[in-house]
């Protein structure tokens, strides 16, 4: 198994460097595609392993622990450099404090002779590795044609793609390292690499707004980094080990030190997962090219945040911290679902929906029962696939119609039929049974039913979700019936990732009982299989049959002439686009818009309140442990 582990972590670093050094775009494409295939194969090969520990041997007489420590400081140095370059006080303070903490930890506290295995791979790690390596690789492949066109739009003299792909591919290695790390210092190291990578990628286009948003992402994630260091310090003083498995085994009875440490590490996870009040960095990350958004939102970065919270769940089970995590998560779920309603920018809707779903994952980790943990893992899997798909769809649409506003996507079905139906199906996989995301939501609500506040917030949020998704799906279809869809040309490297992700979302949902048996059941021994109560197969069968029936009925209607929409008798002839006879006998075309309810859910109305309330909840979560 050790080969796969080394390959999954190191190959992306090497491939990233190759992308940077090989300046021919053909070679770069080759490197990205081959790396993607190898990563995917290696991640699947890893799946057959049971829980396994692994520590790489020393290189050139230097132990890896030492090397990681040195690299930690180098990394913080780079971040500090950017703090000075962009003259941001917060980044400077946070990185200097992190260095101080690390010095204390590494030089004075940690007993370096205690053996700690560097990597530990269990079911949760495997799930994460699969998502990172397969979904992440697909996004990297999608980025190849996308970035070519992106740069053509920008009229760049020298391509910035080498740097772009360096960080994009390297990101996958850092994520793989993060989710397999067993030494908490290693986890921290990879955690910081993802911070730097996302900073580089968000600021990629180099525009003023891109730099501004990248800097914001950096300071927020540095705050998380600092919390992580503090969390490690508290944990170490309490439990006296760097071994994550040992920390988890010590459990929440280990004392206040551990709980405060866990509270701080969860806080670090919150910043990375863009939980309120840190949502603004992920929203700002929209300025980056779409593959970056897709990567940050689905398989990397934010998933690192929820992974950390979920990984540590056994250590704070049954404590006040756990309840605090559940509250914070549920509040994020609700707040961001509400904010998503007021948005017409497609990418922003997706961003809020991501944060919202991550909130649900965090809430499940906080509820901390086997069923809730199962729900969290299901959500991680299904959200990654569906959200990656939706981001790539929006990217494709944006390059075609020049807008990411869903009002401009009105009747997209007639202009881009292929992309439109993929997008609609993607939306449905986020929203309706029997698809995985909803199954996870069902499990989450069932397991939250003992917690009054959490379940109330989930109930409200779940309803809000329906509004923004259903509205978008409907908007894509809003076109006159007699307008025939035009054929849509699409490069293979765009079409294939879209179709693979769509197939993944559907097939994984069908296979959810097997997914449960394979990855969730071993982690929650003794728990009854809740998926059995979901009637997965009968539901798929009946609904599938229903959809086929509906399609047949719709197809048979092609022979009939489509009627004009009702215009209270003012129609002009048989115009099916809703043109009517307006004032002065002039033809007026119907224009419709969605309700975005800004007076109730507008960003300017809610954000301040949401941020203050969320900050208070986080204080409660960490403070309650004291």
């Amino acid at each position, binding site marked *: 198994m050790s080969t796969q582990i080394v390959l999954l972590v190191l190959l992306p670093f090497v491939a990233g460097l190759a992308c940077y050094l090989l300046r021919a775009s053909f070679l770069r494409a080759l490197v990205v595609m081959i790396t993607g295939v190898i990563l995917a194969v290696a991640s699947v090969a890893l799946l057959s392993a049971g829980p396994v520990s692994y520590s790489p041997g020393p290189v050139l007489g230097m132990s890896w622990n030492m090397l990681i420590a040195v690299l930690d400081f180098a990394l913080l140095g780079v971040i500090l450099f950017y703090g000075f370059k962009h003259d941001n006080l917060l980044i400077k303070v946070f990185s200097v404090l992190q260095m101080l903490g690390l010095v204390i930890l590494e030089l004075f506290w940690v007993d370096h002779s205690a053996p700690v295995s560097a990597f530990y791979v269990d079911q949760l790690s495997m799930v994460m590795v699969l998502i990172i390596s397969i979904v992440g690789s697909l996004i990297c492949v999608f980025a190849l044609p996308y970035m070519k066109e992106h740069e053509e739009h920008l009229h760049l003299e020298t391509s910035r793609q080498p740097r772009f792909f360096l960080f994009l591919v390297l990101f996958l290695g850092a994520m793989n390292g993060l989710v397999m790390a067993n030494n908490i210092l290693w986890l921290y190291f990879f955690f910081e690499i993802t911070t730097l990578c996302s900073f580089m990628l968000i600021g990629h286009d180099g525009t003023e707004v891109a730099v501004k948003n990248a800097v914001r992402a950096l300071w927020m994630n540095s705050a998380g980094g600092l919390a992580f260091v503090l969390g490690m310090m508290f944990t170490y003083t309490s439990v006296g080990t760097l071994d994550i498995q040992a920390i988890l085994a010590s459990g929440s009875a280990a004392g206040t030190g551990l709980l405060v440490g866990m509270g701080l590490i969860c806080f670090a996870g919150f910043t990375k997962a863009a939980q309120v009040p840190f949502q603004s960095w992920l929203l700002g990350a929209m300025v980056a090219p779409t593959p970056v958004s897709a990567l940050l939102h689905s398989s990397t970065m934010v998933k690192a945040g929820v992974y950390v919270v979920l990984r540590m769940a056994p250590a704070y089970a049954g404590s006040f911290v756990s309840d605090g995590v559940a509250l914070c998560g549920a509040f994020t779920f609700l707040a961001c679902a509400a904010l998503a309603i007021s948005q017409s920018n497609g990418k922003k809707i997706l961003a809020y929906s991501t944060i919202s779903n991550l909130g649900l994952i965090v809430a499940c980790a906080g509820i901390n029962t086997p069923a809730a943990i199962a729900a969290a893992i299901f959500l991680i899997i299904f959200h990654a696939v569906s959200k990656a798909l939706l981001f790539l769809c929006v990217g494709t649409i944006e390059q075609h119609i020049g807008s990411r506003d869903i009002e401009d996507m009105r009747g997209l079905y007639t202009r881009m039929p292929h992309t439109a139906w993929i997008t609609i199906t993607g939306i449905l996989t986020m929203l*309706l*049974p029997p698809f995985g995301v909803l199954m996870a939501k069902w499990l989450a609500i069932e397991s939250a039913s003992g917690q009054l506040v959490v379940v109330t917030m989930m109930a409200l949020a779940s309803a809000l979700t329906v*509004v923004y998704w259903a509205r978008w799906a409907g908007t894509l*279809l809003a*076109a006159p019936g007699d307008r025939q869809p035009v054929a849509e040309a699409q490069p293979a490297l765009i079409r294939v990732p879209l179709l693979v992700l769509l197939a993944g979302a559907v097939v994984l949902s069908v296979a959810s009982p097997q997914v449960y048996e394979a990855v969730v059941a071993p982690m929650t021994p003794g728990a009854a299989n809740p998926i059995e109560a979901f009637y997965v197969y009968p539901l798929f069968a009946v609904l599938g049959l229903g959809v086929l029936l509906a399609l047949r009925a*719709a197809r048979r209607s092609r022979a009939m002439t*489509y*009627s004009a929409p009702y215009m209270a008798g003012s129609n002009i002839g048989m115009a099916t686009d809703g043109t009517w006879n307006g004032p002065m006998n002039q033809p007026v075309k119907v224009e419709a818009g969605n*309700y975005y309810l800004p007076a109730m859910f507008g960003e300017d109305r809610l954000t301040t309140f949401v941020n203050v309330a969320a900050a208070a909840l986080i204080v409660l979560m960490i403070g309650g442990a004291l």
Partner: protein
Amino acid sequence: MLTTILLVLVGLVLAPLAGGLLAGIDRRLTAWFQSRQGPPVMQAFYDVAKLFGKEPMASNPWQIFCAWVYFVAAALSCVLFFLQADLLLIFFVQAIGAVFLVVGAMSVPSPYSQVGAQRELIQVLTYEPLLILVFVSLYLATGSFQVSDILAHETPLLFQLPLMFIVLGYALTIKLRKSPFDFSTSHHGHQELVKGVLTEYSGPYLGLIEIAHWYETVLVLGVCALFWSTNVLMMIVLLAVTYMAEIIIDNTMARMTWRWMLKYVWSVGLGLSVVNLIWLYAKI
């Protein structure tokens, strides 16, 4: 096995018949309140039969697709209820129908159906959390989301969950599209909305939607019935009183705006739910 088949048949065949009959009785009673004669009790069936006899017309194929999915989801959720499945699962299957009804209305560029679709979404937004909370309260009182387990509960739930029954009443009024909440499709075609989400549907497809609506009516009334499931007679009395109250409210209230509905129903509904849920927590 035989019981299962029987229950499926009850859910599939008898439920819409009961729903249609109820619609007819509703019209008779409403007419009586308004000192009119009213149509025959079977009028709802005559109407739907007539709709199926009409020439199929639609503005685009998506409408037809959506009408069918709405129908299938409504029937399926009703059948699942009679099979005594998990309440949340039934609810989510029902949500498929709600979503496709909106999507179908949005697929036509007509102002009436567009506005109706947006308003329908707000109706969904209003009743969904309340229904989930009703199910959660049933879980807290009985320890299960499974209809079969809830039916096995020995005392009438109404005594433990009186406020939740009122909350369910709000959801029922919205689902039945009754005043003051009838603003996504109105019973009266001459109003500013015409027929809202249903404006663009006609003939057999409107018939399908009508039958789907009967399924949904029976489903929500079925949930109401869970509140006194220990005694068949009392269950019938409870349902009769509830439906009568719906008709009276419908006839005495004017339609309100969606802003009012969202704020009013959420605040009152959440308030009542929280009080009743705390009550249950205190007992556990």
